[in-house]
């Protein structure tokens, strides 16, 4: 029952956004709505921990530990994004950058986008999951192309075409999976549980080819290395709350899909095939991200590439596998989502004030915007994996898993690439943050809702790693129970 309410909130808010014209009222309603959503998802998690068996409603919706974890993460980021966009849109209206109509369209699309994100992780039927991911692409295409200038449209077009091609390949993979099921056991269904119960009978030949299509398909949507090309363009041109949602949540949903399929293939032909693929793609994404961050000139593209890097780390965590690896990867999904959205919000503010994406033009942020500057400073060191912050703990867990799992050399290569990226990010951001305050810069302090969003996220960035609340531990244990066995 909770599940239904959580799903219906975004739809309800979309209708509300459509009807009411006063943006101030609409945005506060949306913030209220998603606050309720967050509370409900926490309640759902605790409810699940109390009686740990998957919830399934009229054989469409199906929520086991993994999907509840994703719902929880998404609802945190969504609440922060709602808070941030409330401040951001109102600021835009005041300064005249956004028209009334654009704000209205923004809020409608914002809610539908969140509805589709939540839908992906709750659906049990793999076909419906594919459809939900397709809807996210279509809806977010408008949000990426929101500013309607040349770059935004180009980014939106590339985003649309590349992701659609990727998703169609994923559909091909899904069909091959259903064929394999039909061929070996005669059942004609796309339900995930049917695949799990009968996975060991499937024909390995078809499964391997199918998994490759799935990996490349959903990998495009997750931003893995050779298929990442749309990601920097889309994230740098979208409005900052949306690029935070894209990086924080959207990439993770496709990782969720890949993880679902990886369990099937692991049960069918053992762990080695999928883990080698994951490690290969993980390290490739890290390499590409490290190379391109070094010579980056645009602040938002730099953050986009660092998302590619962290997706690579998460995939490496899945690849290294075993109980600790999975634990680390899941923790990293949460930590990265929280830290990256904090940074995208910060970058959004800086780009607004300095009116340019170029790193050379943004100078002395600690003096220009003391609050945002210090938040970005903490975010940068959190992203780089410095101890007091949470990303260090999840990266360390993944490294432990890599070394104990016998992938010592790949683990050291991962560490080396993380160091190069850290060096590049510090090299760019040290000039951005410190340094002299440029004159003739009219600066308006951030509205309270943006400040609230920052503080809300900062809480998780600092305490996400060290003080793991009971909620996470319980959820991770049950996920590992299902997935770790392979």
């Amino acid at each position, binding site marked *: 029952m909770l599940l239904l309410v959580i799903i219906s909130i975004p739809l309800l808010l979309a209708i509300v956004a459509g009807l009411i014209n006063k943006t101030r009222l609409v945005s506060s309603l949306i913030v209220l709505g998603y606050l309720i959503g967050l509370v409900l998802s926490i309640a759902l998690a605790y409810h699940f921990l109390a009686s740990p068996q998957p919830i399934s409603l009229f054989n469409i919706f199906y929520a086991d530990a993994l999907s509840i974890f994703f719902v929880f993460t998404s609802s945190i980021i969504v609440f922060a994004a709602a808070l941030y966009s409330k401040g951001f849109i109102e600021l835009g209206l005041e300064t005249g950058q956004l028209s009334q109509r654009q704000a209205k369209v923004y809020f409608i699309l914002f809610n539908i986008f969140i509805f589709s994100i939540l839908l992906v992780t709750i659906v049990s039927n793999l076909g419906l999951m594919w459809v939900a991911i397709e809807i996210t692409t279509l809806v977010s295409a408008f949000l990426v192309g929101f500013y309607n200038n040349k770059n935004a449209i180009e980014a939106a077009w590339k985003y649309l075409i590349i992701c659609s091609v990727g998703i169609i390949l994923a559909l091909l993979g899904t069909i091959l999976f259903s064929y394999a099921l*039909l061929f070996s056991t005669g059942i004609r269904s796309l339900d995930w549980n049917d695949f799990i119960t009968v996975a060991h009978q499937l024909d390995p030949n078809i499964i391997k080819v199918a998994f490759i299509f799935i990996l490349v398909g959903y990998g495009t949507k997750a931003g893995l290395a050779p298929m990442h090309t749309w990601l920097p363009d889309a994230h740098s041109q979208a409005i900052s709350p949306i690029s935070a949602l894209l990086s924080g949540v959207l990439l993770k949903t496709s990782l969720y899909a890949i993880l679902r399929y990886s369990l099937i293939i692991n049960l069918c032909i053992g762990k080695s095939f999928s883990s080698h693929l994951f490690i290969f793609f993980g390290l490739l994404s890290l390499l590409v991200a490290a190379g391109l961050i070094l010579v980056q000139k645009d602040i938002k593209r730099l953050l986009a590439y660092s998302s590619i890097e962290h997706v690579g780390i998460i995939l490496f965590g899945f690849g290294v596998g075993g109980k600790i690896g999975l634990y680390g990867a899941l923790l990293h999904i949460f930590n990265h989502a929280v830290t990256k959205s904090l940074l995208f919000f910060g970058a959004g503010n800086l780009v607004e004030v300095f009116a340019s994406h170029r790193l050379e033009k943004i100078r002395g942020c600690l003096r220009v915007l003391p609050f945002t500057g210090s938040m970005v400073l903490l975010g940068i060191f959190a992203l780089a994996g410095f101890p007091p912050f949470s990303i260090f703990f999840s990266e360390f867990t993944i490294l432990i898993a890599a070394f104990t799992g016998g992938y010592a050399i790949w683990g050291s290569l991962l560490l080396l690439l993380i160091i190069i990226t850290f060096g590049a990010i510090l090299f760019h951001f040290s000039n951005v943050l410190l340094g002299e305050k440029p004159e003739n810069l009219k600066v308006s302090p951030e509205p309270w809702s943006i400040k609230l969003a920052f503080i809300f996220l900062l809480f998780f960035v600092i305490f996400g790693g060290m003080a793991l609340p009971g909620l996470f531990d319980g959820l991770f244990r049950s996920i590992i129970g299902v997935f770790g066995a392979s």
Partner: protein
Amino acid sequence: METFLVLGLLGSTFAMVFSKRISALIGNFALQSFFLCLFSFMEALKGNHLGLYLISGLILVLKVILIPQIIRYVAVNIKSDENLGFFISPQLSLVCALVLTYLAWLLASTVFMGQPILIRIFGATAFSMVSLGIFLMIFRIIALAQVIGLLAMENGIFLLASAVSGGMPFIVEMAIFFDIFVGVVILGIFIFRINKLFVGIDVSKLNSLKG
């Protein structure tokens, strides 16, 4: 009867690859969808499912009539001068098409190892329709060609689904059609915006976001 359908499908796909003008491309796409509709009608007769009849009817309405009409409307409004803009000449692309079909046959024979010959043939045609769809998107400059390439891939996948695994559950089928339709509408809107901003829908001009 099956051989006629296979020939029809492959023929229309090669025609799409070979076509030089937009209207020819749209025509061939409509032809391909028509053969697909025939095939699903045949399947419906054989298995006598009510759903399958509905789906073949839907294909007829949607993919043969409605979507080509929308694309023609878009092509007329943007007053493009009909040429498709080729990276490689149509003749060379035809040769590539043949090579891709052979590769698709190889893939199908490995994947559908123990199956009767009919399944393997339909599998091969499906894979070749998908690969030629991507081929169209890569080697044509006009945005419309990319949209049609996308739709051709859709057709290929639908063929694979219905021929090999007897079609997917009904809800999923409906959702996919709805998706495709919404997708085409959104692509159309974007083509209008590109035309307004970039004066013409030459996708190779969209390369300012580098590095």
